[in-house]
């Protein structure tokens, strides 16, 4: 389990990285935290001609909050996010979910940009990007563009990024102080990828729901925004019946694949169960 040979470049700037990616014409991989890519290299499941390591570009690591948006440099470590006061206050959902990403030594290296660009549908960060309707900034030879969550994820481990583009920033809208959030996840072991994860944001007073945001991890080839379930809550409020209806709707909205850990039917079932649990827990955290 040793990587095949590759050229290695550690550019000092994003522009330099883009130029290098162009030079390899799709046969280079961007190395961010490496917590998903290096295992693939070690198994020789990935054999790029070159690695373009972003770890020597200090300007890609930051957390900035302004105008209701929290912006993360792509190379911001998950560990930094876990302990960030800004994130705790403005994006408590992200704080909670970050503690579910692998284990602390994984989060030491793992980055927000890497996790999202890797596009593992069982991972927490893509689900949050989908739930919050966030966007990423992508830079390529033709300049910069922003890509919304729903346009970013295409299928397993595949985004709409071009091979010579670099994801440079993740933008998540800050969550209203009065809203409640929860990330409910079920995995076989602590720190494993989710069998199903549900990101939930609930706003509104009492039984009324002014806004609901729900998205999945693990329920298909890309994170699924559960808009039809959100609408039930926004329309019918947060009583037992609408919550149950929203959970049932959530299960209908997903079409997960089967794998050795969970059948499709079980994942659909879990989507409903965890949607209900996430909604209830988010509700209870409102206004705190």
């Amino acid at each position, binding site marked *: *389990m*040793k*990587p*095949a*040979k590759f050229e290695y470049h550690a550019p000092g700037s994003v522009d330099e990285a883009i130029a290098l990616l162009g030079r390899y014409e799709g046969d280079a991989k961007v190395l961010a935290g490496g917590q998903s890519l290096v*295992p693939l290299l070690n*198994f*020789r499941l990935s054999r790029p001609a070159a690695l373009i390591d972003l770890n020597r570009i200090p300007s890609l690591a930051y957390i900035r909050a302004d105008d209701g948006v929290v912006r993360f440099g792509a190379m911001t470590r998950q560990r930094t996010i876990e302990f960030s006061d800004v994130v705790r206050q403005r994006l408590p959902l992200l704080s909670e979910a970050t503690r579910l990403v692998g284990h602390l030594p994984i989060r030491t290296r793992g980055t927000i940009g890497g996790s999202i660009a890797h596009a593992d549908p069982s991972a927490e960060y893509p689900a949050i990007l989908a739930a919050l309707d966030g966007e990423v900034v992508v830079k390529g030879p033709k300049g910069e563009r922003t890509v919304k969550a729903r346009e970013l994820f295409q299928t397993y481990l595949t985004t709409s990024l071009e091979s010579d583009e670099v994801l440079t920033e993740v933008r998540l809208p800050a969550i209203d102080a009065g809203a409640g959030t929860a990330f409910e996840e*079920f995995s*076989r*072991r*602590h*720190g*494993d*990828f989710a*069998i199903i994860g549900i990101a939930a944001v609930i706003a509104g007073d009492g039984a009324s729901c002014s806004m609901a945001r729900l998205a999945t991890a693990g329920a298909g080839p890309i994170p699924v925004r559960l808009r039809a379930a959100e609408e039930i809550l926004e329309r019918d409020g947060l009583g037992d019946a609408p919550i149950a209806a929203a959970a049932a709707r959530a299960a209908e909205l997903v079409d997960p694949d089967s794998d*050795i*850990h*969970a*059948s499709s*039917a*079980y994942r659909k*079932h*879990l989507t409903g*169960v965890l949607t209900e649990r996430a909604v209830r827990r988010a509700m209870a955290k409102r206004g705190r």
Partner: protein
Amino acid sequence: MAFLRSPHAHARIGRVDLASARAMPGVVTCVTAADLRDTVRPLRAASRMTGYHATDLLPLAADKVRYQGEPVVAVVAESRYVAEDAVDAIAVEWSPLPPVPDARAAMAAESPLVHEEFGTNVILTRAFRHGDVDPALAGAALVVRERFRFRRHAALPIENRAALAAWNADGLTLWSSTQVPGMVRDALAESLAVPGHRIRVVAPDVGGGFGLKSSVYAEEIAVAALARRVGRPVKWIGDRREDLLASTQAWDEEIDATLALDGHGTIRGLRASVLADVGAYSIVPWTASIEVIQVISFLPGPYRVPAYLGEGAGVATNKAPMGPYRGVGRPVATFVMESLLDRAARRLGLDPREIRRRNFITEFPWRSPSGIVWDSGSFAETLDEAARLADWDGVRAAQSLRGDATRRLGVGVASYVELTGIGSAIPASPGADIATGTEGATVRVDPTGTVTASFGLACHGQGHETTLAQVVADTLGARLDDVRVVHGDTSAGPIGTGTYASRSAVLGGGAAILASRSVREKALAIAAHQLEADARDIELQESAAWVRGAPDRRVSLREIARSAYLGARRLPKGLEPGLEATRYYDPFFGTASSATHIAVVEVDLALGAVTVLRHVVVEDCGRVINPRIVEGQTIGGVAQGIGGALLEELVYDDQAQLATGSLMDYLPPTAWEIPPIVVRHLDRPSPSTIGGFKGVGEGGTIGAPAAIANAVSDALGSLGVEIAELPVTPDRIFRLLASRAPRTG
């Protein structure tokens, strides 16, 4: 070194093109089976079992591969990186054959054959009969039947297997991550046609074994053969993928079992038929029978079973070979028997504890239906104490308070008895001539007064350096700090096989006592001579001797030892010089360890998730040498049992391709999944072993899966769900609950 391993479960090997690999810079050599044919002889595990077919153990597959991961080409290069590059550059013309994916398929008349020359995939059968089981079943008030399934499991030591071979003018030294250096030495002598005294096998600090490292492996032979061929040391460090693909695997049995009882819950008879998926080869030296025979041997458990028929068949498939794993067969046997008893108790409205008490063996020695002699057992005592520690009644009270909540509590019990310290009366398989029943110890006091105790055993985390030193120090009368234990090196100790089967305390400890007694006797004679007293009046403790009642005048062990080697000038007349002894011990039948496990679980019905809240073990492992080490062995074993019950499963698809080839998919438990585990020891010395020791290394893994399965069945009992398949994964619970959900509309 790296291996090209078969990507196919079953295929003929055509042309192998090594040209580009051999041409790579840094590659020393690439060889196939043909290149080693003249220098390496096949090994076979002998046995007189009916219908048994032995298979060849060779370093590389010739002509045909029989499981995914089987080594086909060995590449020696200057680094593992380059060796893997070379493996990638090898082109093999494969002719894939239809695979045999599981034991049921293998039994079908039209099934392809793993080994064509046998004309069958059934490579062994064995049966134990006692009494007349048919009338017992026919006339019983209650008969419970179930088909049980225990899925395939990996031992998964955290250190992967590894071996390093170096030859010089004196012969071969092989460093190997093995539990059985003695067996490997003997096997290499045969395989490589080298005299045994030219081979030294060293198992230094070995990073866990759990049975996986107690067989002889192709890779060990390959490094030795290749090192001889290239004239340089050759090292193979197996990686995790190789470990999951090509180390021996465990369990994977289907058991049809029927238990007959009278109206009071007294067992009348037991019948079981075990179908074991033994993989592609019959491993050396254990044969493919090791799991299945132990299942049928131990199914009756610690209970009086007046009529028994246990039949087992080992069926070859295109999977990695089945081998010993902690508990060997007994985790499966215990799961089946304890599940049957709980089913019977539910039908009869009996407390699970009560049905066990009504059937426990209480007279010893007791000959079990499979012919094993139980010398002792504290079955009811372990059960009662475990129930108290687990707060059984408290769990029952909490269950009724919770009613039909989403999170259900369950409590489950499992009692078992295991044969440990197995002596020569019980061979590894019928007719097997490997020396699993004896073990030696050499105890030597050197002229500086320090003691070296050397063993053929090999430690891989059991703490023999501590426990065997304690035994020697206590028996001989030496200071603990003066005793050094040497093990895991075939050139440094007496003949022995290694450490497996909960044998080291009993056999190694017994041999250590015998040798230490011999040395002590001689030391007393020398001390008596120097103190001018009778040897019977000498005290020898903490490395000093004195005449009883006169502790002021002492001779040290060092002085005694110096005299021993100085010879006639200092020794009593006629006493042979030297102060060392080598003794061997054979416990003949062995002895009986027993325990009761109680697991308390919570089942989240909506998630199908089981959480073990606490786990209690009360065990009788005989005289305890070191309580902390016993506790560590037991807790570690329980953790593996929890993994086996809930998380760990080697999954092969219908093409016999391993779907769990990484630790993302094969799931040993982390600290988070393991609850606090309470262990209590009953100190009941064995009546039949020297020292009174009973083995303890495996027990934790034997009892835990059964207790957890019963606890889950208890939690789900009111829903009509009983667990018959392990591991009981969330998806399986979901399906069990869904299949029993009341249909509406």
